[in-house]
């Protein structure tokens, strides 16, 4: 039996994808949790940027919103939103965009706009925010999302932020954009795009997870790499730092009530 949850497994694995020399444009939610866990463990010098304009920020607790005061007060500097998107992101200073999503498809396209038809949606989601340009102007993109048939669909209802398009070729011959998604981290496994077709392939199963579980949680015929790895379990230190961070965050937000 494991002494960590699948959500912790996902956060720790996502954190490990970041290294000290990266400049990471961070989305709220699991990406923010993972990016700060990386900063508090193996990557103390990783540069975190939030779209509210906070450059090189080191929050003590996780922000609820992308623009909490904590992010600004612990940042090296805070710039305007146009400057953030034009100079820092579009200008090529972001190595990794770290995104979550509501729906993801086999070509790593992201849908955060709606479920159903655009004019008569079944479910209206918040929309693109910074993601459409983070997805193409960052040098590469990491995606983290809880895996289920609802989130992992063959074709997203709407491409908010392009992965590799409907045919895997959307980035071909487009100048001056990044490589796109290079890894997807879920609560079950790690997936990477096939170098040729760009279809997502499972490269590593988290400890105790079976192929059947992954198949059951995927809305298309998922492929597995020939050399299928097992993701290393979280270390005691990683779990301790993550749990402290979450407890600190909960206490901070509760104290405001």
């Amino acid at each position, binding site marked *: 039996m494991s002494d960590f949850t699948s959500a912790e497994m996902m956060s720790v694995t996502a954190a490990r994808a970041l290294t000290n020399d990266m400049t990471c444009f961070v989305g*709220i*939610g699991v990406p923010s949790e993972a990016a700060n866990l990386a900063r508090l463990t193996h990557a103390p010098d990783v540069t975190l940027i939030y*779209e*509210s*304009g*906070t450059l090189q920020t080191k929050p003590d607790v996780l*922000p*609820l*919103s*992308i*623009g*909490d*005061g904590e*992010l*600004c*007060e612990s940042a090296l500097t*805070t*710039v*305007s*939103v*146009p400057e*953030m*998107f*034009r100079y820092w*992101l*579009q200008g090529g200073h972001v190595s990794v965009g770290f995104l979550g999503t509501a729906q993801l498809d086999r070509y790593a*396209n992201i849908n955060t*706009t709606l479920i159903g038809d*655009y004019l008569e*949606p079944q479910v*209206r*989601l*918040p*929309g*693109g*925010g*910074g*993601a*459409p*340009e983070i997805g*193409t*102007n960052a040098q590469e993109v990491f995606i983290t999302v809880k895996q289920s048939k609802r989130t992992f669909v063959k074709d997203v209802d*709407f*491409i*908010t*932020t*392009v992965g590799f*398009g409907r045919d895997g070729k*959307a*980035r071909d011959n*487009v*100048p*001056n*954009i990044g490589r796109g998604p290079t890894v997807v981290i879920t609560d079950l496994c790690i997936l990477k795009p096939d170098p040729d077709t760009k279809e997502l392939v499972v490269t590593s199963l988290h400890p105790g997870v079976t192929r059947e579980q992954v198949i059951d949680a995927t809305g298309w015929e998922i492929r597995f790499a020939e050399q299928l790895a097992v993701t290393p379990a979280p270390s005691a230190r990683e779990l301790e730092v993550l749990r402290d961070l979450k407890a600190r965050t909960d206490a901070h*937000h509760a104290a*405001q*009530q």
Partner: protein
Amino acid sequence: MAEFLTLQEAVSRHIHDGDTVCMEGFTHLIPFAAGHEVIRQEKRDLTLVRMTPDLIYDQMIGAGCAKKLIFSWGGNPGVGSLHRLRDAVEKGWPNKLEILEHSHAAMACAYEAGAAGLPLAILRGYVGSDLPKVNDQIKFIECPFSGERLAAVPSIRPDVAVIHAQRADRKGNVLVEGIIGIQKEVVLAAKRSIVTVEEVVDDLNAGVNACVLPSWAITSIVVAPRGASPSYALGYYDRDNAFYKEWDGIARDRETFQAWLKENVFEKGAA
């Protein structure tokens, strides 16, 4: 020179039915007090523009002030949906709401272009996205120098900009600190502007490169302490994250929302 007015006067004089209104503030310094005054004065058919509609537009949409919304991220940050926005889009309650949807980068560029007096903004954006299929205000142009295909969107030049800031001096010069968002751009892009402030001081004590809006670039200033709550004003009060969570329950149901609106907006009156 900016004119000092009461909130009631400023909204009554500068915001008219049918106007295009930008009430900005990126998570920080959201002008809630002004939004509530717009609701109280029952302004109608507004085209509301804001990168993140947030609770302020959820309230105004639910109160029936809007006919159209131009935005780039329509959620309750860190919490979930904006239920009044969704109810208007999905069910047409209290009235049908037309939406025009962008990305943050495009809207930030469009505000900047508006401030710069240009008709359009150009960005390396929307590559591979379906958004251009549902928003006819997103076009692509070819760079005349490099041949690169780039996205173009019209600049935002609203009738009225409304922002909140920390303080003004007695002449009406305004200092904005912290997450400055697109506060400066939206005021300069607009025909008229209302700036609500926490307080008026003798000296702004602004650093040489601080974000300062000169009095002659602003139409009117209103003193509205805690005017950004439940968002926050750096140096004055924190974001009321608990209320943002609570809003989810209030806004989910039409009757609960209307009761909240009656008690907290209509019956409280202008500050």
